[in-house]
C-alpha cells in the first residue's frame, strides 16, 4: 500500500472530524423578525468551505504524488479549480433552481413565511417548501389551452424526432462511421423543424377558452394563454430572423466584395443608424404602421424590427466574408459564372453557419423585446411572451409569482432548446472570433 493513500485517508478523516466539529458547535439558528439567523454563520461557512478545499486539494496532491510525482502540484490546483467552478455553477444556478421550485410550488406568492419545521434551508426560506410541491401553477396557466388532436400528434411527433436526434447524437461517439448516421440526424432535425412550424402556424386564439358556470365557452383569461404567447413570439422572432438573413446577405456581400462609389458612406449609415435607440422612435413607428394599416398585426411588428436587424446583420456578414478567401468565387467566375451565380452557388452554401448565427442572434434578440411589441400589438391574442409575462407584475399592486414562474419556465423552454441545440453555431462564432465589433 502506497504511503500516499494512507495519508489521503488521514486527510479525509481529519476533514470529516473538523466539519463535524464545525457543525456540532454551530449555535442553533435564532429568529430575527421574519428571518432565521445563524450567528456568525458566514465564518462557519467560510471555514467549512476552506476545510473542504484544503482536504480535496491535499487528497489530489497526494493522489498526484502517487501517480505522477512531478505534476502533483498541478493535481492539487485542478482539484481546487473544480471545487471553485462548482461553487460558481451553484451561484449561477441558484436563481434557476429557485425559479423552478417556485413554479412547482402551490403558493402563488414568494412572500410566504417559511414553515417552522424541516430542513434548515427550507426553514430559513432560502429554498421553497418542498411540502408545497404541486403542479397547480402549470395546471393554471395551461388549463385553458385546448389543442386539436392533430396538434397533439404534431407534438408527439416532434418529441419522437427530438429523442431520435438525441439518441443518434449519443450513438455517434460509439459508431465507427458516424457519417452514416448524419442523414438520419438531418432527417429528424427537419422533422422537428417542420412539426414546430406546423404547430406555430396552426395554433390559433380559438384554442384558448374556458367554460363558465353555465358551461359555455368563454375566451381564456390573459394569464392562461402562455402557449399562444409563445407561438406568437416564435412566429415574430422566426420571421424577423429569416428576414434579417434574407436581406442582409446580399448587402453584406456587396460591402465585402464589391467596390463602388458610395459604398463606404452607405456602410457608415448602416452602422450609425442602428445606434439610435430604436424604441424611442416608437411614436413615429406607431404612425407609420397605423398609416400602412399594419397596426396590431405581426407583419407590422416584424417590419418594425427588421430595420435594425438588417443593419446589424449586414455588418456582421460583411465582417465574416472579409475573413473568407475570395479564391473560390474567383475560380467560379473564371469558369464563367456570373457574380450572382458565384454568390448564390459558392458564398451562400459556405456561409450557412454564419447565416444560422445571424438568424439565432436576431431570434434571441427579438424574443426579449417588449417595448415595441407592447405598442404595436394591442389585443391580447397578439401578445408576445414578453408582454404576457409583464402582466403578472404590472398589476396595480402585486406580482403573481407562481403563475409568473410557471409561465417563465414554459416561455424559456423554446429558447433554451434552441440555444443548446445550436450552442456551437452560436458561441462558436464568438470563440472563433468571427464577430468583430
Amino acid at each position, binding site marked *: 500500500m502506497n504511503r500516499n493513500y494512507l495519508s489521503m485517508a488521514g486527510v479525509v478523516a481529519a476533514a470529516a472530524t473538523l466539519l463535524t466539529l464545525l457543525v456540532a458547535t454551530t449555535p442553533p439558528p435564532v429568529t430575527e423578525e*421574519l428571518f432565521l439567523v445563524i450567528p456568525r454563520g458566514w465564518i462557519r461557512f467560510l471555514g467549512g468551505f476552506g476545510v473542504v478545499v484544503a482536504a480535496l486539494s491535499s487528497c489530489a496532491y497526494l493522489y498526484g504524488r502517487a501517480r505522477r510525482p512531478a505534476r502533483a502540484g498541478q493535481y492539487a490546483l485542478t482539484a481546487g479549480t473544480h471545487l471553485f467552478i462548482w461553487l460558481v455553477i451553484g451561484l449561477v444556478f441558484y436563481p434557476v433552481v429557485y425559479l423552478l421550485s417556485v413554479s412547482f410550488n402551490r403558493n*402563488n*406568492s414568494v*412572500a410566504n413565511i417559511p414553515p417552522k419545521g424541516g430542513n434548515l434551508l427550507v426553514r430559513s426560506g432560502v429554498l421553497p417548501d418542498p411540502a408545497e410541491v404541486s403542479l397547480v401553477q402549470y395546471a393554471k396557466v395551461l388549463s385553458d389551452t385546448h389543442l386539436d388532436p392533430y396538434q397533439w400528434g404534431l407534438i408527439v411527433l416532434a418529441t419522437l424526432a427530438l429523442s431520435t436526434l438525441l439518441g443518434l447524437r449519443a450513438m455517434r461517439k460509439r459508431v465507427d462511421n458516424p457519417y452514416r448516421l448524419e442523414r438520419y440526424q438531418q432527417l429528424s432535425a427537419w422533422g422537428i423543424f417542420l412539426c414546430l412550424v406546423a404547430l406555430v402556424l396552426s395554433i390559433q386564439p380559438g384554442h384558448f377558452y374556458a367554460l363558465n358556470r353555465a358551461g359555455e365557452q368563454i375566451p381564456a383569461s390573459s394569464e392562461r394563454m402562455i402557449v399562444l404567447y409563445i407561438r406568437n413570439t416564435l412566429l415574430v422572432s422566426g420571421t424577423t430572423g429569416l428576414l434579417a438573413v434574407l436581406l442582409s446577405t446580399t448587402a453584406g456581400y456587396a460591402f465585402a466584395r464589391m467596390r463602388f462609389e458610395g459604398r463606404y458612406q452607405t456602410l457608415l449609415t448602416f452602422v450609425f443608424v442602428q445606434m439610435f435607440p430604436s424604441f424611442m422612435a416608437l411614436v413615429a413607428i406607431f404612425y407609420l404602421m397605423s398609416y400602412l394599416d399594419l397596426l*396590431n398585426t405581426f407583419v407590422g411588428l416584424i417590419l418594425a424590427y427588421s430595420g435594425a436587424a438588417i443593419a446589424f446583420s449586414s455588418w456582421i456578414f460583411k465582417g465574416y466574408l472579409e475573413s473568407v478567401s475570395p479564391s473560390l468565387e474567383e475560380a467560379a467566375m473564371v469558369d464563367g459564372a456570373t457574380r450572382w451565380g458565384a454568390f448564390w452557388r459558392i458564398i451562400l452554401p459556405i456561409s450557412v453557419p454564419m447565416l444560422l448565427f445571424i438568424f439565432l442572434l436576431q431570434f434571441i434578440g427579438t424574443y426579449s423585446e417588449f417595448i415595441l411589441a*407592447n405598442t404595436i400589438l394591442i389585443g391580447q391574442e397578439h401578445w408576445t411572451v414578453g*408582454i404576457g409575462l409583464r402582466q403578472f407584475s*404590472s398589476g396595480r399592486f402585486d406580482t403573481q409569482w407562481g403563475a409568473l414562474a410557471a409561465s417563465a419556465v414554459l416561455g424559456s423552454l423554446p429558447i433554451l432548446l434552441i440555444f443548446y441545440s445550436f450552442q456551437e453555431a452560436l458561441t462558436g462564432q464568438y470563440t472563433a472570433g468571427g464577430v468583430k465589433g
Partner: protein
Amino acid sequence: MKKYLIVLVTLFAGLGLAFGQGLTVWTTWRDLTLEWFQNETAAFTEAFGVPVEIVRVDFAQAQPDWLLSAPAGEAGDLLVGVPHDRIGELAAAGVAANMTSFATADFLKDLSEQARVGFTIGGKLFALPMYVEGPALIVNADLVPEAPATYEELLAVAQELTSGDSFGFMYDSANFYFSYNWLHTFGGFVFGRDAQGDLDPAELGLANEGAIRGGEAIKALRHELGLIPAGTDYPTVTGLFSEGALAMTYNGPWEIENFRNAGITNLKVMPIPPLADGTPFSGFMGVQGVVLNPFSKNRADAANFTKWLARPAAQVSLAQLSGRIPASGSALAQVNDDPVIAGFGQALLNAEPMPNIPEMGSVWGPMGTALTVILESADSDVAGSLTQAASEILGN
C-alpha cells in the same frame, strides 16, 4: 405576373368584405368581470342587433395605447374599464367623448355622488360609471373577534397582536394610494376646489398642517408603535395576511378572492374606525367606467352600448358575479346582503375619489418619494419631505 395580381386582388377583396358594421370594444377586464362583460355583450347584440368585437388590452398599457390609437382611428369604439383618475388626461387629449347628455336626471339621482364627481370635469361627464372600489379595513375575524371601535383601540389591539412573526395591523404604507387616508383624515388634501366646484391644481394641500400630522401618524405606525416593519411592501402585507400572520390590513376588494383562496375565510370588512374626536377615516377611492371614443365611426351604437353597460340592472349582475361594488345606489341596495360588498360600500361612503385632472399624474411620483423618505428613519423630517414633494408637484 398578371395571374398573381389577380390572386392578390381577390385575396384583399375578400379581407375587405370580412370587415362588417359593428362595434369594436377595448376592455381591460379579465376573469369574472370579463365573463360578465361577455354576457352583457351577447345580450346587447341580441337586443340591438349590433355585433360587438371584444379586444382585450393590458390594464397598464391601455391608456398610452388609447391616447395614440384613438386619433389615428385605430382604437375601439369604447374603452371599458377605465379608472376615473385617468379620465382627465383622456378628455384633455380629446380621446374621451363628452357624455353629459347621456346621464338623465333619474340616472344621476341614483348614482353614487363620488362616482359622478370622479368622472366629471368642468361640469361635464366623460365616462359612465360601472363600479366603485377602494380600500377598507379587512379584519381576520379569527384573530380579532371583536372589531375595534376607535382608531386608538385599533392601534392598541394591533400592538397587542404584534410579536415575533405575527402582526396586528399592516398596510402598504409607502404607497400614496393607501397612505392618503391618513394624510386626508388628519386634514390634508390633494387639490382644493374652486367656486365652480372644479379641482384647482394650484391649491395643494399635501404639505399643510393636517397633512404633516397625518405623515407623523404614518411614521408612528412604523417607528413609535412598531406595527409595520421596515421594507414592508404590498406583497409583504398580502402575503402575511394570506398566511394568517397578520390580523388586520387596509386593502381593496380585489384581494378578497385571493385571501379566501388562501384559506382566510372568516373576513370582516369595515371602515377604519374613527379618531377619538369622531372624525371618520376617508381615503382614496376609485371609479371604473366606460369611455366613448369621439373618433368612433359608429357613434350612435357605441353610445347605446355604453348606456346598456351602465344601467343599474347590469351593475347588479356584475356585483353578483364578480363582487364589485355598484356605482348605482339602487343596484347597491339590491346586493347589500353580501357582507363584503356592504362593508366596502360603507367604507367608501366617506372616501374621496382620486383627483381626476391630469395634474394628478405628477403627484404620485413625488409623494411616493416623500413617504419613502418619511418612513425610512425614526428621525426623518416629515414636514420637510412633504414640503419638498409639494414644491416638486407645483413646479412640474
